[in-house]
Structures are given as C-alpha cells and as structure tokens.
C-alpha cells in the first residue's frame, strides 16, 4: 500500500510550515532514516525522515511552498514491490490502517528525540503521521535506560536501572511487576521473577500485527505497537492556553478505569447488537409484584423491584439458556460457567463500580433487587470489597434514567459482554399492520468476538429479549 507523507508538526502548537527543500527527487529510492525534506517554521528547521523503505513516487508540494498546513499530503512513497506510477496516481487512501503496519518498522527506526513533540499532532490524526514521527513511543535504542515498555501504567514506575534494562531486554512490562525493593521499587530480581512466571510479558509486536485480521481492528492500538503511550502531559497541555483549564490529579479508581477500559478496547474485538424490547408486560408484572410485597410494621415493603432488576435477572437467565455465551476469554482457552454472574455498573462520584450479582440465574427478583440496593449504597460509600466487584461474565449498564435512548458500552475485562440499556419510552410501532403505542427499551450488547460470534451473541440477545417481553418466565 502506498505510504502517505504528511506535513509534520514540529511542535504541538504548529499549524503550518514552509517546505524549504526536497532532498530526494521523484523516483529516488528511500530507506528508513533517509532525510526526505527540510521543513521550516519561524523558529526552526527540521528534517523529515523516512521510516519505511520504498520509492518516492510523487512530490505533491514543491519546495519553497510557504504555509503548508500540518497533515497535508506532501508526497507519496511506493512501498517495496508496488507500482510507482500507480502509487503516484492514487496515493494511499486516507485513514487506511497505515498504523497497523508500523509496529514492525518502528524498532528499526533510528532515535530522533527532537521528533518527540511533533508526534503529538501526528498521532492524534487517524491515518496520518507516517513519516518519522510515530517513533516517539519507542525508546531511543541504547540511550537512557528506562525505555522498557510500560503499557499498563500511566504513572512513573520506580525501578532500578538494571531492572529497567533487563525488562527491556526480556520484554517484561515493568508496569505489571510488583517491586520488592525499598518503597516498592522494582529491582532486578523482581523482573527476573516476573519473567520466570511469564505473567507480565509486554504486549509484543505479533499481537499488534494480528489486530487487522480481527473483525473490528483498533487502528490506534496496532499503531502503537501494543503499548500506546498516548500524548504526554506536556503535549496535551501544549494544545490549550494555560489559564483555560484546571488540573485534576488522578485517583486510583480513575487510573484503573483508564487502564482497564483502554486495554479492553485494544485487546477485546468489540461488536455490537442492538434490539428493541417491549416493556408493557414487564411494567404490568412489576406493578403487580410490587403491590403484593409484604409490608413490615412501619409499612415498608419487603421489596420494590426496578426495571433494572428485571434486566439483571433476564441477563442471568439468558446466559444459562445460551451456555456458550456464558464464558470468558482466558488467553489460550475459554472459561465456560455454570451459573451466571452479572455485573451492574453503579455510577458514583468520580467514577463507577461494577458489583457482581452471583448466580443471577437462580436468585429471585426480590433477592436481586435487595442485593442491588445494598451494593449501590456501599458502592457510593466506596465500601465494596474487591471480591464483590471482581469477576462476572457480563455487565449491565443502564443510562435510561438520563433519557438516553441508545448507546454502546465498553466491555469490562475479563468479562465477554456488556449490555447497554436505554430508557423505556412510549413509541409508535406497527402492530398487526396498524400503528400502536407501546413502551420500548433499546438495548445494545457489546460482545467480545474472541468468545462470542455474531450468531451466538444474537442468540443471547434474543433470549434476553424473550424474557423481558414475557417476564412471567423469570418467575418460574
């Protein structure tokens, strides 16, 4: 696939620059590290280096052109074995998965620390940033130690120089290593132990290379070689005026959410199944059941079922009715469960918890309802025990109370699906050839394609819909 050469940004704030000089002509062979052109701003002159090999097929912006906007296509390189004239004519389709090809090439790239800043803009532009810029995520080879992959953490990792070097050499992700040195510092023996246990291999290039084959590739993940560092603090701050924002430090929950869900989107190939469920029967049953609840001496009912309680129960039963979907991905195998564990997202101030209702298939609606009330109260007080929010096969995330009609949710690892539940609202639908007003709730199941294929996911969704629309089935 031809490679687009885009106008690079020399600093996070640069918007345009001058193309001072082309150092290669059309038809020249280029290899990684070759200087293609010189770019000027009012502050500096920088070189544009090639990362990939090929032939410079076409120069689109002649030298001496002033004020070339950042990310404009300035040249096209025909990759090895490609027809130069064809590449020159067509160019690479914008937003093609250029990035996916990067991980292999990147380690070969020569370090060019000055390119750091320019990476910011490049990486934010899908399909852009091909030449000499994405490399910033890779540590300069042989320079300061400390370039070990740190995929799992955003913060600084404290590790001895030797530990860092061994981690880098052995491909151990320092972010996943427990330090045993003073103040939790990671020392060499921790890295060796982690390596021996094999539990903390940094996501390696092969994984990234496989990504494009998956149904829904995540181009960003692949582009970053499985270890996306994203923009640095300074790069992000560079985009905004200093007095435009206040800085909010990250607490542990925010870090965990960021880490886990980023990982989920990169690792688990998501696809989405949306279905409308009619609620009239369920609303009626709910009213009857709530009305029949025994009352204590203060007149307080023993339970008060919510729609969400029915959703939890329905997911629990649906999972046991479609046993193949009651499973999670475990790297080299699939774990299939007997009972259904259904997590329920509970929004709290500054984040969310997902306590898990165990055996949701077996529990009565009133048990689930009361358990949820307890979970929600304790989640808000941050009093949940880890074992109460760990595990689960699926989760339910309900934004109906905000009037949200439809949304998709990110799977919470290691679970294999998550149900995004919208508001129950009166809609006009066609029934028996005539318009009718019914209460409808739109639900979208995000599925991990490694575990659930489309048909299997659809089977699960359809079982769920059946239970919601015929809720008496949940009572027996």
């Amino acid at each position, binding site marked *: 696939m031809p490679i687009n050469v885009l106008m690079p940004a020399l600093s996070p704030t640069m918007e345009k620059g001058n193309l001072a000089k082309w150092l290669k002509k059309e038809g020249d062979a280029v290899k990684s590290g070759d200087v293609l052109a010189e770019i000027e701003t009012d502050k500096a002159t920088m070189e544009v280096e090639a990362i990939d090999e090929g032939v410079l097929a076409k120069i689109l912006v002649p030298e001496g052109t002033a004020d070339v906007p950042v990310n404009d296509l300035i040249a096209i390189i025909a990759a090895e074995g490609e027809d130069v004239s064809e590449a020159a004519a067509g160019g690479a389709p914008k937003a093609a998965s250029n990035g996916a090809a990067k991980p292999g090439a990147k380690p070969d790239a020569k370090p060019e620390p000055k390119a750091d800043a320019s990476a910011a803009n490049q990486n934010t532009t899908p399909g852009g940033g091909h030449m000499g810029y994405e490399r910033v995520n890779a540590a300069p080879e042989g320079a*300061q*130690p400390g370039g070990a992959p740190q995929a799992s953490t955003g913060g600084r990792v404290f590790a*001895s*120089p*030797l*530990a860092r*070097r*061994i981690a880098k*050499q052995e491909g151990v992700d320092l972010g996943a290593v427990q330090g*045993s040195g003073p103040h939790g510092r990671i*020392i*060499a023996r921790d890295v060796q132990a982690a390596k021996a246990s094999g539990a903390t291999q940094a996501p390696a290039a092969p994984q990234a290379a496989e990504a494009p084959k998956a149904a829904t590739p995540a181009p960003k993940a692949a582009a970053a070689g499985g270890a996306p560092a994203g923009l640095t603090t300074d790069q992000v701050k560079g985009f905004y005026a200093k007095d435009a924002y206040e800085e909010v430090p990250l607490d542990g929950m925010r870090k965990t959410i960021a880490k886990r869900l980023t990982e989920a989107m990169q690792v688990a190939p998501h696809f989405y199944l949306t279905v409308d469920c009619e609620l009239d029967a369920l609303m009626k049953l709910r009213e009857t059941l709530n009305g029949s609840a025994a009352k204590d001496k203060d007149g307080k009912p023993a339970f008060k079922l919510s729609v969400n309680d029915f959703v939890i129960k329905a997911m629990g039963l649906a999972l046991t009715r479609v046993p193949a979907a009651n499973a999670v991905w475990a790297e080299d195998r699939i774990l299939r469960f007997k009972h259904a564990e259904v997590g329920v997202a509970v929004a709290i101030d500054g984040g969310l918890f997902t306590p898990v209702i165990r055996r949701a298939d077996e529990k009565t609606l009133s048990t689930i309802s009361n358990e949820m009330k307890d979970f929600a109260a304790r989640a808000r007080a941050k009093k949940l025990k880890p074992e109460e929010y760990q595990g689960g096969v699926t989760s339910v995330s309900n934004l109906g109370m905000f009037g949200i009609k439809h949304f998709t949710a990110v799977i919470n690892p290691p679970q294999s699906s998550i149900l995004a539940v919208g508001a129950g609202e009166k809609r006009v639908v066609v029934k028996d050839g005539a318009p009718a007003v019914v209460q409808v709730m739109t639900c979208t199941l995000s599925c991990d394609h490694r575990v659930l294929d489309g048909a299997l996911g659809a089977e699960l969704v359809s079982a769920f819909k059946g239970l919601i629309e015929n809720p008496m089935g949940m009572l027996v």
Partner: protein
Amino acid sequence: MSDTYDVLIIGAGPGGYVTAIRAAQLGFKTAVVDREHLGGICLNWGCIPTKALLRSAEIYHYFQHAGDYGLTAEKVGFDTAAIVKRSRGVSGRLNGGVGMLLKKNKVDVIWGEAAVDSAAQGNQPGQVTVTETKRAEAPKGAKGAGTYKAKHIIVATGARPRAIPGIEPDKNLIWTYYEAMVPETMPKSLLVMGSGAIGIEFASFYRTMGAEVTVVELLPQILPVEDAEIAGLARKRFEKQGIKILTGAKVTKVEKGADSVTATIEGGDGKTQQITAEKLISAVGVVGNIENIGLEKLGVKIDRGIVVTDGLGRTNVPGLYAIGDVAGPPMLAHKAEHEGVICIETIKGLHTHPMDKAKIPGCTYCQPQIASVGLTEAKAKEQGFAVKVGRFPFAGNGKAIALGEPDGLIKTVFDAKTGQLLGAHMVGAEVTELIQGYVVAMNLESTEEELMHTVFPHPTLSEMMHESVLDAYGKVIHT
C-alpha cells in the same frame, strides 16, 4: 534468679551488639551475653587493633622515605611497647564505647558463659543458663551467672583461629593473631602460614618493621578470594618489599627450638625445604564457635561447622537464630552486623530479604591495600557471564602521582549483556576507602550508564573508579 527478655543474644561482637541495639530500637527488651569483651574479636583482637598497628607501620614507612617528599627525618626508630600500647588503647576506647551504647539503648549485659537450655515453645520462652567466667572481669553494671528466659535467642558467638594438628599455637613460638598483636619485641624473622587477610596484614606489618618474612600459602595464589590479577600485582609489590612468598606450598612439619621454629615446607613440585624463623604465625582461617552452647542438644542443624539458617537468621529450631561467623562465611564483621539487623527485623515482622552475599565488600589493609566486592573475573566467567572488563592503573591518576603512590590498579567486571556491575577489584593506596562507591552502585543496581554519568571529583583517587568503568566500554580517557 530469672528474667524474661524478648531477645537474648549470645555474643557481644560486632554482630551481637549491633543486633542488640537494633532490637532495643525496635522496642524489644534485650540482653546480650559475653564472656570476654564487648565488641568481640573485631574490636579487641582483630579489625581495629591491627589497623592501629598498621598505621604505626605506615607512618614509620613514610618516615623512612621522607626524602622522597623533600623532607628530612633522621634517627627514625620505633618503640615496640609503645606501638602495642597505642593499639591496645584504641581497642580499650572503643570497647568502652560499646558498653556506653548498650547502656544508652537499655540493653542488659550479662557476663559469663552462656548455654541454651531450651528454645521458646508456644507461649513458653526459651531458657539460657549463664555460668561464671574467669576469662575477664565483668564490665560495670553487668548481670551475672543465672538462668535467663527469652522469647528469641540469637547465637552470635563468632569464631576463633583454626588450628592445624601438629602446628598448634603455643602462645610462645607459634602465634595466632592474639600473640601477633602484642609482641614484646619485634621478631627478626617470621614465618606466616596462610595468605588470607589476617596472614597478609601481619606479614606486611612485620616486614615494614624490619622482620624477614616468609609467607606460605597452600593454594596457587596469595589472597585466594581476590581476583587473580589483583593478587598477582599485590604479590609483586610484596616481593619487591622483600617478603618471600611460597604458593602451592604446605607446612608439613614444625620443629620447635629454644627460641625459633623450623618448618618443613613441601612445594607443589614435591621438593621440600626448611625455613627457620623466630616466630610462626598460624593464620589458616577461623572456625565458628558452635560448641558448648547447647546447640547439639536442641537438635540445631549444623553443616560442616556452620549453623544452617534460612538467610534471615532462623535455624531449624523455632525461637533460635544464628548470625555472623557461626552462620557461615564470609566471616567478616560487617557481614555479621548486617545479618544481625536482618534477623532482628525479621523477628519484628518487618519486610526483610536475605543478604546478597555477592555484594559484601572485603578489605585487606596491607601495603598496598586490597579491596573488592562481587565476582572476580574468573568467577564471573565460571558462572557463564560474558564479561566486559575495565582496568585503570594508578599511574594514570594525578592524585595518585601527587601522593607518591603510582602503583595499583582498579578493575571492574561487567555483565556484557545487561551492564550489571558484577565485581570490582582494587589494589593500591587507600582503596579500602574507595570500594564502597562501587558497593553503593551495585546495591542500587546501577548499570555502566549511571556510573559513567556520575561526576567524580577531581583530583581524587576515585576518578580511577570512573575511568575503569569507561575502560570496560572502550571510552577511557587517561590511558
């Protein structure tokens, strides 16, 4: 009488008293038992008094070479009794200091011979019986003989000179370090059996003071634990000073005369020779003091004279611990101290790790001094490392030249793969004060990068440490 302690330590050597102070800091009710001297061999008959003797020898040597520095020193002489008196005075002062430290930390000192009757079982504390000793008078305020109870008993009884059958020390003609430290007169000739740190230090001292010295070493190399290249350089210097060195040689027989000994020495080639000297110093190592303290009775696991521990001081008998020389080599004061602290912090429940013995430095205070840490080049290769070796000679260092000490070498051994500093080996002036720079680097797990990026002050001998690292990576400046 019976007192119950949290921790009772047998032996007030460097391992024992340091452990006692740390125990007190951690809030333990602590006692330490000794039969002879606070501070142990190290402070009374080892490390410290020999440094005092060697300092006298060093200054004497400088006086003899005053002319080299443009100075005049005439009628240079020495007074053996005064040299010994100074050395004893240094020990005495520090010995008193240990007593004060223990008192300040509210550690009870118990005077006498201790034997463990039982280790703690369940809620029952262990018991130690202390009997009177005639070896030395009890320091002021010490408790006496009796039975004492303790939840945790730490054995820190140290070591004593090893004796070779047929060549047993007699305090007269065949000396150990005890006698060698307090000579009444300087012997005119001396035979030193063993070329470890003790043997070589005495050889160096007595040679400087004018004695004809012969060193006999069984192994093919003097200073057998040191790097071969460093030991070889040291040997050349010793021989230049007039010390006669026989390696791969064994003393097979010693005949005592009226005021001399005649040793039969068998060389590696099978040839024998006889050497007569006024005194013979037996410096063939030390053995742990594991006898008569009740260990056998309790079933404490012992392997080749060493109490077996788990690296955190715990023996196979719960409630009973061992640190220092009795717990195995290297039999060095600083190892004992560190091991003691690890042991007591483990008892306290703090997060501890066994000591990494590859990072324990060793120093020998002969002229020239020897200092080392970690693996020798040969050991590193033996363990399968591909190594990068750096060397820097004293002759390339400005400060060394200015000091008039142009002989010596600093050698570094790196793992070529990871850049880990595996070992450092030095011979030359003041190297015993330099080595800890590398020890810190090793403990911080520095690679060659950090060492190269460290700024060493100029002009110092320490610059050679930098240059040695640079040399290992082909970046040395001053050679």
